[in-house]
């Protein structure tokens, strides 16, 4: 019986991990060449930017908020980097800190509007989403290709692990971000404030936690993460374009929710988000191996999966409520 008695907090994350294992196994049985370390590593390589964005989003959703501006922020970062490097001949060493600063500032402004003027997060970040896309088009409506040597060499560098299997520099950045986020979420005061704020804003205020600072910082962090994701995306695409990462909001939110974070805030793990991203990656890989399905199916599949996990959350929450009612 002990085996069945899993801590209820870990239930959503276990479902996610199990789903990933099942999907990977199904792919391995169905398709030749699917079962390999490189296929797994490719999941990370192709989704490094999603992973970074989703980590930032995890914090936002943990506070019970939402950030719809992430996809546009990525596009804006690629566009800004491309124009600064190509047209204004800035050094990449200057461009990257600059775009990260811009992204964080963008997030900070949105967070401040949400906190100090009591505006709903979705409307502020929706406006941010359109603003960032509009700024892309102000720079250029065409795609700008980056042919700077440094960007090229970063994007082509392969870091070999275990023989011929490799990862990219973007994966290393993403993994560092994940490690830092896990540390921040579970071992710092800020992390505890985030969880407390998501549990109940009222109680956090009464307890004297710095609610305002935490909330603003969470959106700043999300802005930073999405602009870092934009930098990684620039390595991946070697271009800046206003239509990059369209619809990434859903992918990101889906990754976080599939990873077991409750949309109502307060419960969830950064590690779960990693699996949420991996599951999306594996859907794409499965569709690619299948070959006959068009890529539009990816979006539809992710939408359905998101729905499934939201329903799971509903069951989970109502059970929790019932059990706490029974205990009382």
């Amino acid at each position, binding site marked *: 019986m002990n085996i069945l008695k899993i801590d209820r907090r870990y239930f959503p994350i276990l479902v996610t991990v199990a789903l990933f294992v099942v999907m990977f196994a199904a792919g391995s049985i169905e398709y030749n060449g699917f079962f390999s370390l490189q296929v797994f590593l490719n999941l990370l390589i192709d989704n490094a930017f999603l992973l970074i964005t989703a980590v930032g989003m995890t914090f936002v959703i943990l506070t019970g908020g939402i950030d719809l501006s992430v996809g546009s922020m990525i596009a804006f970062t690629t566009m800004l980097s491309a124009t600064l490097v190509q047209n204004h001949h800035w050094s990449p060493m200057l461009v990257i800190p600059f775009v990260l600063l811009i992204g964080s500032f963008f997030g900070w402004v949105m967070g401040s509007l949400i906190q100090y*003027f009591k*505006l709903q997060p979705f409307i502020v970040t929706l406006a941010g989403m359109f603003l960032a*896309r509009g700024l892309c088009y102000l720079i250029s409506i065409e795609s700008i290709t980056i042919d700077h040597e440094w960007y090229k060499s970063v994007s082509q560098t392969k870091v070999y692990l275990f023989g011929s299997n490799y990862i990219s520099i973007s994966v290393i950045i993403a993994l560092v971000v994940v490690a830092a986020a896990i540390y921040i979420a579970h071992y710092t005061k800020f992390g505890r404030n985030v969880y407390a704020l998501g549990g109940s804003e009222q109680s956090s205020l009464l307890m004297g936690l710095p609610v305002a600072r935490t909330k603003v910082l969470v959106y700043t962090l999300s802005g930073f993460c999405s602009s870092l994701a934009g930098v990684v995306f620039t390595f991946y695409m070697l271009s800046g374009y206003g239509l990059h990462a369209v619809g990434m909001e859903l992918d990101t939110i889906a990754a976080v929710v599939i990873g077991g974070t409750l949309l109502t805030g307060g419960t969830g793990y950064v590690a779960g988000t990693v699996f949420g991203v991996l599951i999306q990656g594996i859907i794409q890989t499965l569709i690619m191996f299948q070959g006959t399905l068009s890529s539009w199916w990816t*979006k539809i599949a992710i939408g359905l999966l998101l729905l499934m996990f*939201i329903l799971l959350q509903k069951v989970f929450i109502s059970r929790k409520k019932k059990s706490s009612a029974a205990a009382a």
Partner: protein
Amino acid sequence: MRNKLFWPLVTLVVLLLANLIHNHEFFKITVQDGHLFGSLIDILNRAAPLVLISIGMTFVIATKGIDLSVGSVVSITGAMACLIISQGDGSSMSVLFSALGISLVLALAAGAWNGLLVSVLGIQPIVATLILMVAGRGVAQLITDGQILTISSKPYSFIGAGYLFGLPFSIYIIAFFFIIAAVLTRKTAVGLFIESVGTNPTASRLAGIRSGLIIFIVYLLCSFLSGIAGLILSSNVSSADGNNAGLWYELDAILAVVIGGNSLNGGRFYLTGTIIGALIIQTLTTSIYSMGVPPEVTLVVKSVVVLIVCLIQSETFGAAFAARRRKKNETAKQGVSV
């Protein structure tokens, strides 16, 4: 209290006057081949899809919800209608009506999906409709097979580009739906139900209003109107583009509703305000084009306007402002007494 329509109307008039200064023939309406032509008619004609979507969005927002999927519904219905017409005889009326019927059923299905997620399953409206906002474009791409479908059908293009008694046909469509919506919500209890659900769904349910059903119907209606907007848009250009049809309409519609004096917190709605809001946005878009500003700027302008309007509506912002004014008055009074 000042009339809610005051500021929206002032904004619209100022925008129109700014256009008049820029182009002295802005208000001129001429008759050509029995049709009325002019910038004002043009704005009304082009505003038709936005007006329809905004009417639906007004009801959704009045229930404290939001529908981010309207743009995707526009692309789905346009794609479906064009697909059916491209496979049949373009000039046949039966093909036309089956195209209209099937695509509107699809729009209703999309609305039912949103309504189900929000009212029965209790998912937050933003997330529930975000699913269709992104996945819906995937569906539209599936229908058109990733291509831009171009059709030639006289009866179909009449919907978006035809004229009736000298006026564009789309103006009659908006008038029709506006009158129905207005009568339904202001002459029957439906409007009251919607406002009551938006104020407090639980209290309304306890008072005997079927909150869930009202919320469901509101999303159904919003999708249906977006579907008609999709038909008008695709018939106007005689083609369907899964990727770009109706792109960014969700922002425009939300903006129209908010500019029209409706609060995002739900509970009250002003249909006339929304219509004026939609006209403001269309006038703004048209002026940006006609004044030679790059059209890309529109997105930036609109998003800044959304933020400003929300800030003005925000209580905290108003309170801070009022406090400052009070302080000023007090210091002025003190100055007098000393």
